[in-house]
């Protein structure tokens, strides 16, 4: 019997589950083997709800599940046609608002944005392409910052810091000119491990670690055979 002490009861897609008090809907779902997609949210960092991919419906209202804590008796819709189509449209918007040429991208096969497109069966974005002109910054000795693929999720800003807590990545400009850039001064002495971690923590191919590319053959990469989220859904 599951120990339900200190837990609260919620319903997710009609199924009753028990959630830790104080956990967010994303966490509660994960702990019960249910996947809610996330992009900007990254374990270990405060959720900021900027991508909206984790949207669910609570009492007929759309809410972000990475920032909403569970409360007793909550009824949540997650895996419905309406919500999945909304999520798919967010992925499509991200594709057309950047320049995503997957065949030339080192992250292909391991990219979370692409994996979500596969999961939601995107064959073509429904929105017009914008083909914005964006620059590639390869001036850093360790890292290529490929602005064409940045989805401005902030995961690099939130998770990549030096020992004194200083951020390696930062926002630059505003509105449609907003960019995430690598600090040229701090970045000049970036330790190897941190540069690799920055590539790993980025959900797309916007941060590339220099020196070695295309390591895994097609067919063996993370999302080649299993959809993103299946690691959560398949846990027993």
């Amino acid at each position, binding site marked *: 019997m599951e120990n339900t002490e200190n837990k609260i009861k919620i319903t997710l897609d009609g199924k009753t589950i028990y959630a830790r008090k104080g956990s967010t809907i994303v966490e509660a779902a994960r702990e019960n083997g249910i996947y809610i997609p996330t992009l900007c949210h990254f374990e270990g960092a405060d959720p900021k709800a900027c991508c909206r991919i984790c949207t669910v419906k609570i009492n007929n209202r759309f809410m972000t599940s990475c920032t909403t804590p569970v409360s007793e008796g909550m009824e949540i819709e997650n895996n419905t046609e309406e919500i999945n189509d909304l999520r798919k449209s967010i992925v499509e918007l991200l594709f057309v608002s950047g*320049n995503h*040429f*997957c*065949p*030339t991208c080192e992250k292909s*096969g391991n990219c979370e944005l692409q994996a979500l497109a596969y999961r939601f069966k995107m*064959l073509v974005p429904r929105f017009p*392409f914008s083909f914005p002109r964006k620059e590639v910054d390869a001036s850093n000795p360790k890292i290529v910052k490929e602005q064409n693929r940045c989805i401005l999720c902030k995961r690099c800003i939130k998770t990549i810091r030096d020992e004194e807590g200083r951020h390696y990545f930062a926002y630059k400009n505003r509105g449609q000119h907003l960019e995430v850039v690598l600090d040229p001064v701090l970045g000049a002495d970036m330790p190897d491990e941190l540069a690799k971690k920055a590539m790993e923590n980025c959900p797309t191919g916007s941060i590339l670690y220099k020196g070695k590319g295309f390591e895994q053959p097609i067919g063996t990469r993370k999302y080649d055979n299993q959809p993103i989220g299946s690691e959560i859904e398949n846990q027993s």
Partner: protein
Amino acid sequence: MNKKVIATTSLAGCFGCHMSLLDIDERILDLIELVEFNKSPIDDIKKFTKPVDIGIIEGGCCNSENVEILKYFRENCKILVSLGECAIMGGLPAMRNGISVEECLNEAYLNGPTVQENHEKIIPNDEELPIILDRVYTCHEVVKIDYFLPGCPPRADLIWNALYALVTENPMELPYEVVKFD
């Protein structure tokens, strides 16, 4: 059963999608039982000789000739399929989108590191040459497209599954492993 008529073309593509079509290997014998090819680089028929059921387009539109051919396909085919990354998203050719045509031509014919012996600094301008478009357009930006099969190139199994479904008028099943963007 009457054989379905198929046509194919390569616009701004590299022929990789056509190669992938040939990668269906021995299933091509099954295919040929079910279909007849009309205008296609495979049989080198230049003009449609009859109405076509399924037109398969590889590549997007980078010049005026690509647009003409695409429209010609739309007029003559009941169903049009965008096959592969270039047809659907512009692919490699579209990496020039966002850079001006002038800059591209200068790089290709005058300033590029591999340019040799163009002493008169000529940028090809014969009137027989198709006109380069301001940017590369995906096929569905130019005409209505009915189906999209991604991949660079699309997996042979994806092409086979989809073609077989279209030809036999069954629903398309696109398993996770075969729908990929690279």
